[in-house]
């Protein structure tokens, strides 16, 4: 008997069991189910939620792999073991096995913990509530390791994932019902619960925190550190990286957020496959540019001088905001989450624009934590239903007007 028949018979035999959703979740990963249409349309499109989610994951894989190389590269660079890249994206200093292995062994556990804990909770909830395991966490589980610092302790990540999935999603009813983006809920939890692990100049480079502890215990070593560009700008420091480095991603930062180039490629892939909303991505970029231009104008006209603590980020050229920090990653992979974004096409324009606009505003006015895109997206998640409400009201009003015209 073939595997297909064996699994089918197993499913039929256990169809009343409470744990069947857990089996089905694995079964449907191997085989597209044998379900046929009943009533309604007799044929259906080829896409399902698994395929949709899988497409998003595929778009993120380059960022993940780059992140692994970059983790090792930043580590070795800070230790002074290798030279900085010199020859563009394919620099041989960067794409070395030793770089990759450092990142691989740091980041793979993050991925495993993220998926293990998150999917575990999804399975438990599916069994308790008696529905199939929904695919929402497939994307969240990949997003999470990409938006945390590389050295974050695994237990912290696990706690945050539990919080994010239970409070951010399951209490609202699971996939499709949540108000806040679960991945960002997880990150926000980490940020507010363990702020020392989410900002500063130690967490972005593998080994920096450990080295600090060794120094504190009396060993005679040089401290290593590495700040994100945003952190540097916020403190008004000179930035040691070229714009090209920032764009290609050879900079410290969360695991997957650094390479704007690969994020753009992922974004284009999502737009091409029609899975990600180009409206949100484009309007978010426009929003960020507008806010950036306003700030540039403020510094250009001398209203804010170099003595101000806002000066550093405010005077950064508006287009630089697009390639530094998590803006690109947030815009492409998080703002476009269809469940928490605006659901109407008009609403998406407004929603995206405000995300870009608010991100840059938070960046500039909150130098203690200059990564604005996370808070901006969470804020707009909360406002998305309101935006949709007014967009839909426009349609309702049109209908009312038509009725009035008839009565009059």
């Amino acid at each position, binding site marked *: 008997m073939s595997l297909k028949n064996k699994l089918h018979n197993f499913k039929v035999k256990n169809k009343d069991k409470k744990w069947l959703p857990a089996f089905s979740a694995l079964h449907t990963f191997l*085989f597209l189910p044998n379900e046929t249409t009943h009533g309604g349309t007799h*044929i259906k499109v080829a*896409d399902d939620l698994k395929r949709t989610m899988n497409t998003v994951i595929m778009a993120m894989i380059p960022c993940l792999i780059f992140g692994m190389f970059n983790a090792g590269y930043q580590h070795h660079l800070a230790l002074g073991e290798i030279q900085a890249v010199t020859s563009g994206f394919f620099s041989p200093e960067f794409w070395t096995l030793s770089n990759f292995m450092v990142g691989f062994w740091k980041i793979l556990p993050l991925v495993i913990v993220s998926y293990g804990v998150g999917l575990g909770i999804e399975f438990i909830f599916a069994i308790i509530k008696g529905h199939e395991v*929904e695919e929402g966490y497939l994307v969240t589980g990949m997003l999470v390791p990409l938006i945390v610092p590389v050295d974050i302790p695994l237990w912290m990540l696990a706690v945050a994932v539990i919080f994010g999935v239970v409070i951010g999603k399951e209490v609202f009813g699971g996939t499709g019902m949540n108000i806040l983006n679960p991945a960002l809920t997880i990150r926000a939890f980490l940020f507010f619960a363990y702020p020392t692990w989410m900002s500063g100049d130690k967490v972005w480079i593998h080994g920096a925190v450990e080295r600090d502890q060794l120094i504190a215990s009396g060993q005679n070593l040089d401290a290593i550190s590495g700040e994100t560009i945003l952190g540097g700008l916020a403190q008004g420091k000179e930035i040691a990286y070229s714009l090209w480095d920032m764009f290609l991603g050879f900079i410290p930062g969360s695991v997957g957020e650094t390479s704007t180039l690969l994020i753009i490629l992922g974004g284009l892939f999502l737009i091409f*496959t029609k899975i990600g909303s180009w409206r949100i991505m484009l309007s978010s970029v426009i929003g960020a540019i507008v806010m950036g231009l306003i700030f540039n104008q403020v510094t250009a006209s001398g209203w804010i001088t170099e003595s101000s603590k806002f000066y550093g980020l405010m005077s950064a050229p508006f287009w630089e905001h697009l390639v530094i920090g998590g803006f690109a990653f947030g815009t492409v992979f998080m703002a476009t989450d269809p469940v928490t*974004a605006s659901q109407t096409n008009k609403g*998406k324009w407004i929603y995206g624009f405000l995300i870009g606009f608010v991100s840059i505003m938070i960046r500039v006015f909150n130098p203690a934590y200059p990564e604005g895109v996370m808070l901006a997206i969470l804020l707009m998640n909360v406002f998305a239903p309101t935006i*949709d409400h007014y967009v839909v009201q426009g349609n309702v009003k049109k209908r009312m007007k038509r009725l009035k015209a008839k009565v009059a």
Partner: protein
Amino acid sequence: MSNDIRIKKGLDIKLKGEAEKTVEQAVISNYCTIRPEDFHGVTPKLVAKEGTTVKAGSTLFYDKSHEAVKFSSPVSGKVIEVVRGPKRRIDAIKIEADKPQSYEDYGKFNLDSATAETVKTHLLASGCWPFIRQRPYDVIANPDKSPKAIFISGYASAPLAADLDFTLQGKESELQAAVNALGKLTEGKVHVSVGKNASSPMAGLSGVTLHKVFGPHPSGNVGTLINKIDPVNKGEVVWTVSPQDLVIIGELLLTGKFNAERILALVGSSVKNPRYFKTLIGSEVATIIYDKGVDKDGNDRIISGNVLSGKQVAPDGNLDYYSNVISVIPEGDDYEFFGWNKPVFNKVSTSRALTFSWLNPKKKYDLNTNTNGEHRAFVTTGTYEEVFPLDIYPMQILKACMYQDLDEMEALGMYEVAPEDFALTEFVCVSKQPHQKIIRQGLDLMLKEIG
């Protein structure tokens, strides 16, 4: 102002098994079955009890809530069985057909001297009334209300639909008589749509407002026509009639005979030789589908109607009251290894998520009934809007139906829609939600609560 209607949003689903343009006389069905479930919302009161002999056009039953609305037998013969379900609900009325058919004579109808009242009485008495449907609620028209307009779509854009330009050939006089009669029933206009190539017999009708429609399916849906011309507002009613039913109405007016003849398309990838048949409403599908058609022991789904909105029928089932097409497609009750992530070339998709139907828009597909995934909550957004040309927010109205908020349903445009308008959004739904069922239940709720 141009009467053309152009829509951009929509989707032509190209399937294998289009009917060849030849008409064959179907084997005469020994039994004719009428199922009251075809008439949504009607509670039948039986007139022709078991054992009664009826003529073609004799009343079988009437609607309990509108007693004037009568339903006629398509054939002459003997009522041999009334199949009842729970609570003695009538599920089916089975008639054994006579060999030479005899017809109830309703007399030639003089349209020139007719008033709205006499037309109405005549159509009600003869059993032609059920062919007239109304919006809101997509049910048989309430004869007590007068419609603001009547809409007839003479263009079929659904996948594998019967080509109306072909099936209506030579029926010009019947069509004209029917629209003349219908025109007396409304103070508004009778709107007729035809395809852009307008070789339709409908194009020559007088006394109607003619519209040419351009664009992909659902450009031929009457709901699209209504939405683009004169949407239904609260308190208003419009009527719709399909062209094949107009022919029956027209023949009754001209000759006095209720001739329930259908030119039917047998289509679908499971059919060896898809073609047209001449048969009667309620005929057994077995009389049509096997001769140069489907395999007797094949694993196929037989659908009375098109693949988007038709009803599944058993091989010993019968043609329903309204359809003019029988589609037969393969069942898809099999697993597909890694079907959810491998590249797909042989299925239709509106995305490009490793689905490649966008590469070759002209290609015809052999789709089966597999759902290609499991039922999920609404997740993706924007996909419905791409195939939904009505000025309505599809996901929002579906959700309003699901949480049964009557005010919101009304505000979002529930009076304007019928389940078939949501066939394409259901087809493209990544979450495999039953859109047409949700809308039907929503309409039923409104009908019950608001009326």
